[in-house]
């Protein structure tokens, strides 16, 4: 059965998945145990199309040199590629290059909000709001800043019955807040938070909004300027790009309020023994040798996505697969699926546990069948606590996965439960 054809359940798959898969060499991998790889760990990191790998390789083979630092041909080419990538990537995210700061990761981007904006603008007693649903990247920087500056940190709880944010509690929590930091999509539950509502609520009380879109960006086109958030953190590696690079999108008014975070070379106009005059705008935040190969790889990734992926179709396709998997898994004795992956707006993530097979064991047993899933607390321990568990197994689907893989996964999981519980 071709993945491009209607599946056995009468589901029409609009994407030409077979063609898409041909761009990802790793998806042809046979594991050491002889099993073909089935990669369901996309929320941890996505695989890369060949054009990304080739673009980075070509950079090192043909025009590698340090950008922004010399007048020779290679340095000019490298600088042009780095800045060309900024222009292209920022347009992909619906904004302009002057509102995009390269970072090492989405985590570093959120630290940049904490230490480049909040540290300069918040005083003792000011309020930062985050939620129980967040990745540690959107909790720990605020805890640390709270210790340093005496800011008040408030947590919006989750509605444990519906596995969503408790928006009524959020209405209360944001009163008097200066900054609201919220995840676009939960990396554990796959729930897409009502970010437009959060932005409106936060702005109505005069608070700035920082979105952690590490999990959102791979599944929907972000139009930063239209969205209206003040900050938005993104990781390239979760959306077909390389590891080691991400960005912080920043509204220009917020950028004007920021001060230096990591300091050193490249970000200065002049340095004397007594003081430093920093560059303006995004250039103030990119110290050290730029992430050139990574930016070039990310540029290739967004070009590839633009050319090959309709995000709406991809979302529907991923949802067909993940909602089917969740429904089937709920029927396997002893399996609990957390959250509501079947909801239309959910994004391809299925967190689950078996009531007698320990999560690490289940991860190994799935791996023995060739299935790559994540096991652990997913860097979201406050959420785990709210859910009353220490860890989960997590299968996460992206557009290159197939219904055949989903069927094989459910069959293997059923087999594991029959043999090991």
């Amino acid at each position, binding site marked *: 059965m071709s993945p491009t054809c209607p599946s056995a359940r009468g589901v029409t798959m609009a994407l030409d998945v077979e063609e898409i898969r041909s761009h990802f060499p790793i998806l042809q991998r046979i594991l*050491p*145990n*002889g099993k073909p790889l089935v990669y369901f760990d996309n929320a941890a990191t996505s695989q890369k199309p060949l054009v990304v790998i080739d673009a980075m390789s070509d950079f090192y083979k043909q025009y590698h040199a340090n950008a922004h630092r010399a007048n020779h041909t290679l340095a000019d080419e490298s600088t042009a590629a780095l800045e060309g990538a900024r222009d292209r990537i920022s347009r992909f995210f619906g904004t302009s290059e002057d509102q995009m700061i390269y970072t090492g990761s989405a985590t570093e981007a959120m630290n940049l909000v904490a230490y480049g904006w909040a540290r300069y603008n918040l005083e003792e007693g000011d309020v930062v709001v985050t939620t129980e649903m967040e990745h540690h990247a959107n909790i720990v920087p605020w805890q640390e800043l709270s210790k340093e500056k005496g800011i008040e940190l408030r947590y919006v709880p989750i509605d444990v019955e519906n596995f969503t944010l408790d928006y009524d509690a959020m209405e209360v929590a944001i009163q008097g807040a200066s900054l609201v930091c919220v995840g676009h999509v939960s990396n554990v539950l796959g729930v897409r938070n009502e970010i437009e509502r959060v932005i409106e609520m936060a702005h109505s009380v005069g608070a700035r909004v920082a979105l952690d879109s590490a999990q959102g960006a791979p599944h929907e086109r972000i139009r930063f300027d239209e969205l209206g958030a003040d900050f938005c953190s993104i990781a390239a590696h979760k959306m077909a790009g390389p590891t080691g690079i991400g960005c912080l999108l920043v509204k220009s008014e917020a950028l004007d309020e920021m001060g230096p975070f990591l300091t050193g070379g490249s970000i200065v106009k002049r340095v004397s023994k007594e003081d430093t005059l920093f560059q303006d705008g995004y250039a103030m935040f990119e110290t050290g040798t730029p992430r050139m190969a990574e930016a070039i790889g990310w540029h290739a990734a967004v070009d590839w996505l633009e050319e090959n992926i309709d995000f709406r179709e991809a979302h529907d396709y991923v949802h067909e697969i993940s909602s089917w998997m969740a429904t089937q898994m709920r029927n396997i004795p002893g399996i609990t699926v957390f959250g509501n992956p079947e909801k239309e707006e959910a994004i391809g993530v299925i967190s689950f546990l078996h009531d007698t*097979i*320990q999560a*690490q*064991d289940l991860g*190994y*047993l799935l791996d*023995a*069948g060739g299935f790559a899933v994540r*096991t*652990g607390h997913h860097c979201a321990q406050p959420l785990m606590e709210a859910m009353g568990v220490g860890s989960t197994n997590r299968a996460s689907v992206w557009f290159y996965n197939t219904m055949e893989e989903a069927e094989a996964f459910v069959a293997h999981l059923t*087999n594991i439960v029959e*043999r*090991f519980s």
Partner: protein
Amino acid sequence: MPDDSEWSEEIVEIVDRFQSCFDDMERLELLFEYAEKHPSSLPMDMWNDENMVHGCQSRAHVVCSLNDGGGFMVEGGADAQIVQGLMAITAIAVNGQPPEKVAEHDPSYIEGMGLSRILTPSRANGFMNMVRKVKQEASSLM
């Protein structure tokens, strides 16, 4: 091939059983079986920070002692059955041995059992930490 000259008859038999498995799933099934019949399982109420094995992805604890005859004894407990199974086989290999011999213990049977592929570096790290702790305890009991 691993050096099997130091393996006891029981370990040779265990290695044979694992070698006759059809695939990794069967090997893991057998490992779960050994977890169930750990010869010196450590009850959960004795798990504490002091006897915890660090570096395991799951919780694991070992307590070492000498029996009346001066032979080494390791009690082990883990929340993951795969780890518990590895502990059980290690206990079979070392229990009753003189501590001097346990201090030099080489878990080469893991390779013989065909588990080295299942024990990827991050998983093997936890297992090797457990073996290291057993060997250190054996040295201190000499």
